[in-house]
């Protein structure tokens, strides 16, 4: 009898467990409601969606980096810290699955959850289509950028979650790292920096920021370098995640 599964069945098994974990608890629904309320509030009230009188979702997507800054760490903070606290990490890693399969499975499950949250914002898209005729290609690109942005923050959270048994610590660590990635390219900050250093240094720093790369996608421009940036942040953070989990066991 074959007693271990393929990479695909292993990853999908982990994804299903994590997703059922999300939807099995009321926290997930609370999260979805907060996410949608915040998105609506920022878009319509703070972003002045109607006053702008534009057939675009700029006032919706502009706020995503700031929203994700807190909501994504809240979704991902328990990914590894909870396994460490409960001791189930020992169970999981003595099953016939590889560490990359576990990391990818956990990451994908949370990313799917965030994608569902994002998909539930479709009334905003419907609204703008009813009121005017926006560039739907650009909106789709912006949604893709938003998903990649969420994935980058999530991968960072997954990594910080492996560093500690304490969910709160993992939350704070990931908010701090994500905040750095946001403000490095946030124009009020970069404007400040240009007073002290050369523009070349500022733009080098800004190129490490998610804002720089998200801006282009948000405007509907698909540049492979921007997509590549987010994918490499995800790859790098998940690799760091693997190094940390391996380090836990090496002693």
């Amino acid at each position, binding site marked *: *009898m*074959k*007693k*271990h*599964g*393929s990479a695909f*069945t*292993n990853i*999908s*098994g*982990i994804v*299903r*467990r994590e997703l*059922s*974990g999300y939807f*099995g*608890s009321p926290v997930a629904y609370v999260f979805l409601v907060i996410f949608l309320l915040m998105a609506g509030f920022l878009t319509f009230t703070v972003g002045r969606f109607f006053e702008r009188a534009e057939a675009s979702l700029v006032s919706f997507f502009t706020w995503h980096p700031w929203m994700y800054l807190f909501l994504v760490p809240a979704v991902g903070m328990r990914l590894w810290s909870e396994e460490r606290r*409960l*001791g*189930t990490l*020992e*169970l999981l*890693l*003595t*099953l*016939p*699955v*590889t560490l990359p399969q576990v990391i990818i499975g956990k990451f994908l499950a949370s990313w799917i959850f965030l994608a569902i949250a994002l998909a539930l914002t479709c009334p905003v898209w419907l609204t703008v289509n009813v009121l005017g005729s926006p560039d739907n290609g650009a909106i789709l690109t912006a949604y893709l950028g938003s998903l990649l942005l969420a994935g980058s923050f999530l991968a960072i959270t997954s990594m910080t979650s492996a560093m500690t048994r304490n969910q709160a610590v993992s939350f704070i660590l990931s908010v701090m790292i994500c905040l750095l990635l946001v403000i490095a390219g946030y124009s009020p900050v970069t404007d400040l920096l240009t007073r002290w250093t050369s523009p070349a240094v500022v733009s080098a720093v800004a190129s490490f920021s998610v804002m720089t790369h998200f801006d282009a996608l948000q405007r509907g421009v698909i540049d492979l370098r921007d997509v590549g940036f987010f994918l490499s942040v995800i790859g790098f953070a998940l690799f760091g995640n693997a190094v940390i989990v391996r380090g836990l*066991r*090496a*002693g």
Partner: protein
Amino acid sequence: MIRVENLVKQFGAKRAVNGVSFSVERGEVLGLLGPNGAGKSTTMRIITGFYPATSGRVTVGGHDVALDPIRTKALIGYLPESAPSYGDMTVHGFLSFIADLRGLSGSAKKAAVHGAVETCLLDSVLYQPIDTLSKGYRHRTCLAQAILHDPDVLILDEPTDGLDPNQKHAARELIRRMGETKAIVFSTHILEEVEAACTRAVIIDRGSVVANGTPAELKARSVTAGCVRVTLAGTAPEAAVAQFGQLPGAARAELLPSDNGTQGRVTVRVYPQRDEAGAIGAAGAALTVAVAQAAQAGGWQVQALSTEEGRLEDVFRSITLPDTVAR
């Protein structure tokens, strides 16, 4: 099935496991004994592939754990210490998840989950969240997870910890029964468990193996093994001790503290002579007969007479606490 060779595990400055070697074949149940912090759990975590070894080698079913972790993990069922599980899942959901990751699907998965549930008596709580269960049920859920895929090798870290006496008994029976067809390693603090379920015991102290043998062999190493214990009536205690101490093959005799003198009964333990290796000679082996004859000659009434097997607890303490016991 399991071969552990010269295993070493270093945590920073501390050497948790220091050159442990043993092997377990199919049909054997190996009890791993030792004081807290002796390196039992660490050894088991290395065998199951959770910790990499600092040096040394572990093979399970011919596969090296370090080189082929997936194939070895597929052969092993593991119950970690404190029996962790996902509290938010139901028992059925949890076992299904484990079955998925064990590569089981369809009817094979159904049969495996059903079998494990039946063996561990989880029927009544199948659809309850694990968080809401009592400690005994949670423990059994994790045990069910370990035996789900009918593994050739079982590694159980304190499988009876936190169970009530009935559950402990059932768990021991289960281990003994499964040990007939599998290779099992389990750790415990309870010495009677070793006698009840093990075919062999290994005692680990401070990271090293200090004893390895069947429970009977280990008990024979106890100072009281081979001693003759006799309860007499109608004699003065001093006379009996003096008389028995001089018998051929006897090293010395001592009065046991239990009901000395009361109601005229005296219990004496007579130690056999041992050579330098600790073996008992022919005269020592015939000591029981000699004691009985001496009692008859003295006109004392023998109420009880027995040869002691030795106690595992004495062996355990003398081996793992050499500093205090030897002096």
